[in-house]
């Protein structure tokens, strides 16, 4: 927790190109490059100036990814060769019509609570598109200067036409505002009155993602990413829409929130608002995908049903052999038990923001959010602490998430049995010949100090989930993955102090597949929605009005892929 590394920060707003040498630096692999740097490198390649390499559309054609070199660096402790930088890509400020804090308030809190990177994502909408998107930028740039060891991206909470919200953010640079503003004005579902789930609106969403991809391809921004937020909350992100976003902008549309924000919303009255954890308390509407079961409208162990269900929607995406990442964020609008309110005499429509918040001494028990970094973390494996490296790490799928700082860190290696220490880590690909013996080696760094609720979380169990890569989904609306299941579980011994390690033979590999990990404090479990044979001790349904977020903690990792040549 906290910061124990020094950073060689770039300040991209002061010069146009960040890390211009990456494209020609052979020590930086393709996957580490921003798309614009990668296209520069490919240009040089096609001119015969560099070696060869190809971007992969599925893991089946991706090269093996060994862990980065494990030399220690000045930037702190590396696991599997990377710095694992904690962040949050879903944060609101006074520039959102339903929020209140200044940018610097969010950044100072996020920094204090241990975040290395954050994305400011105010809601898309008429006022924000007109002035808010411009006016928030100087505040963000000032925060970058004031808080030097937390990276602050400018993004947007996009109203996806025909669907839910999503984080869209770009690499800092001269055109960060210009690109976001044009994108919002032309493609935001609220601005364009395109919220209904219709084919035309679904097409507008794809056009928006295509626009983003073009901005990166043209080099107007160095990089852009999209992650769908609270995807199952209202049932409006149908499986075919998610697949369409992924396929329209590969490498830009990279994932969704595995767990929504608003994690304090289920704290029972009178101490809390007594709502649904994550504010997942709704029911289907005419815009909902009719195939979703009602279970999808609630959270399970604090996580979204798409992610929490073993053999569910997330696994059905992974079964296609395409990377799809999960994240966990605060969605911070108004903080539970805070004592502030919006500044008096605010005129949001005129000013594009509320006046600075003021202390009023009233304890906001009905608010549902935690400060960024306080509870939810999206941990990204990055080669260094820079904007480009965080985005590259996310694109590469090097992500694990946790709640309540359940663990300090995790090192995951999938490797040929008996072939030395290094293999593929989270997000990576291990290529093997059919029949090769493969093993999984995991080391969890157990929590060593109290979290922000003043207790040391205790990890009780780690589950290993395995699934086959079965190929392209013939039904784009499928949300089940029949081969995915919890393959093994490991109880953490009561006496474990610093680390918990285990090795698991994955057997002789006959089919391409993936392995992902999940861990829990063990306080609330239930048979998974696909039965005990698939998930005997999965997360339990969060009780609306009675969900204590601190007594139900989980971590989830992205998959490691094993591909048979």
């Amino acid at each position: 927790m906290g910061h124990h590394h020094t950073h060689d920060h770039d300040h991209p707003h002061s010069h146009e190109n960040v890390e211009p040498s990456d494209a020609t630096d052979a020590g930086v692999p393709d996957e580490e490059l921003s798309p614009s740097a990668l296209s520069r490198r490919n240009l040089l390649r096609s001119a015969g100036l560099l070696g060869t390499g190809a971007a992969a559309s599925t893991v089946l054609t991706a090269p093996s990814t060994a862990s980065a070199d494990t030399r220690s660096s000045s930037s702190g402790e590396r696991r599997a060769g990377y710095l694992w930088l904690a962040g949050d890509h879903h944060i609101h400020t006074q520039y959102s019509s339903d929020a209140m804090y200044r940018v610097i308030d969010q950044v100072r809190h996020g920094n204090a609570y241990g975040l290395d990177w954050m994305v400011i994502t105010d809601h898309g909408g008429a006022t924000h598109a007109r002035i808010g998107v411009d006016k928030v930028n100087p505040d963000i740039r000032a925060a970058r200067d004031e808080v030097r060891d937390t990276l602050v991206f400018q993004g947007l909470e996009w109203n996806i036409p025909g669907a839910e919200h999503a984080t869209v953010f770009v690499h800092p640079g001269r055109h960060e505002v210009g690109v976001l503003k044009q994108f919002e004005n032309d493609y935001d579902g609220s601005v364009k009155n395109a919220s209904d789930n219709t084919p035309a609106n679904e097409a507008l969403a794809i056009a928006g993602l295509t626009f983003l991809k073009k901005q990166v391809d043209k080099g107007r921004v160095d990089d852009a990413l999209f992650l769908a937020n609270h995807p199952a909350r209202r049932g409006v992100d149908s499986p075919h829409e998610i697949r369409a976003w992924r396929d329209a902008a590969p490498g830009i549309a990279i994932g969704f929130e595995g767990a929504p924000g608003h994690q304090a919303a289920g704290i029972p009255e009178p101490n809390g608002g007594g709502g649904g954890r994550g504010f997942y308390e709704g029911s289907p509407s005419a815009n909902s995908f009719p195939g979703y079961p009602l279970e999808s409208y609630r959270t399970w162990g604090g996580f979204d049903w798409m992610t929490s269900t073993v053999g569910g929607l997330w696994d059905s995406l992974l079964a296609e052999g395409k990377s799809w990442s999960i994240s966990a964020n605060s969605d911070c609008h108004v903080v539970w038990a805070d004592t502030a309110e919006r500044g008096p005499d605010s005129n949001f429509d005129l000013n594009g923001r509320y006046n600075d918040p003021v202390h009023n001494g009233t304890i906001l028990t009905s608010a549902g959010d935690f400060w960024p970094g306080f509870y939810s973390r999206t941990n990204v494996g990055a080669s260094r602490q820079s904007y480009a490296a965080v985005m590259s790490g996310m694109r590469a799928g090097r992500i694990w998430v946790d709640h309540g700082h359940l663990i300090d860190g995790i090192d995951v290696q999938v490797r040929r049995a008996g072939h030395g220490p290094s293999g593929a880590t989270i997000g990576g690909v291990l290529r093997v010949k059919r029949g090769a013996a493969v093993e999984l080696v995991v080391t969890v760094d157990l929590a060593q100090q109290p979290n922000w609720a003043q207790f040391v979380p205790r990890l009780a169990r780690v589950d290993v989930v395995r699934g086959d890569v079965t190929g392209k989904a013939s039904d784009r609306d499928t949300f089940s993955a029949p081969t995915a299941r919890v393959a093994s579980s490991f109880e953490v011994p009561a006496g474990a102090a610093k680390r918990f390690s285990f090795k698991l033979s994955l057997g002789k590999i006959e089919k391409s597949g993936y392995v992902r990990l999940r861990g829990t404090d063990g306080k609330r479990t239930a048979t998974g929605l696909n039965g005990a044979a698939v998930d005997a001790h999965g997360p339990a349904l969060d009780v609306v009005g009675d969900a204590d977020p601190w007594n139900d903690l989980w971590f989830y990792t992205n998959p490691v892929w094993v591909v048979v040549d």
Partner: protein
Amino acid sequence: MKEVVGIDAGSATVQDAEHLLGRLLEEVLGRTDAMVACTHFVRGERPHVALSVTGVDSAALVSLELGVASGSERSGPPELAAGAALAAAAFAAGEGRAVIYPGVSGLVGTRSASEVLAESAIEEIDVMGGGVASLVHTRDFVRPEYVNGRLVLLTQPAGGGGVVPFEVPNPTPCCADH
């Protein structure tokens, strides 16, 4: 299944559709103990919510600006008439989210599961996430669903014991100040 009338005013939400239903029952159709009224989603170019109602005379509706479908008869604007027909067909096929059904007026306060089953048209009570319902805290808002013609109430555990219906009477709207 008895004769059913489909009604479509292009309601955006189930709340709007229920409000319309209440007004129609009060001002035009009258209410009987035996009647069933459901909401149905109409998807497509303009997703919205339509109604099906049993045991009423559709003649009184024809003069209103509504889509109405009864048997093979259609009236009102074509798009709404099509939605009304869809709602009537869905009810006939054993689907719908029930707003009015026999015994609904007695489902107030806290009732035992056996009372709910004995005194209303609800035939089954399920508990999300597993378990058996004993006490049902109705919150005076019970909206069971027809599943293959069976009226099923899905519930979820309540804080402090018992169960509550899955559907919250007043969910936090998206983008509310919270």
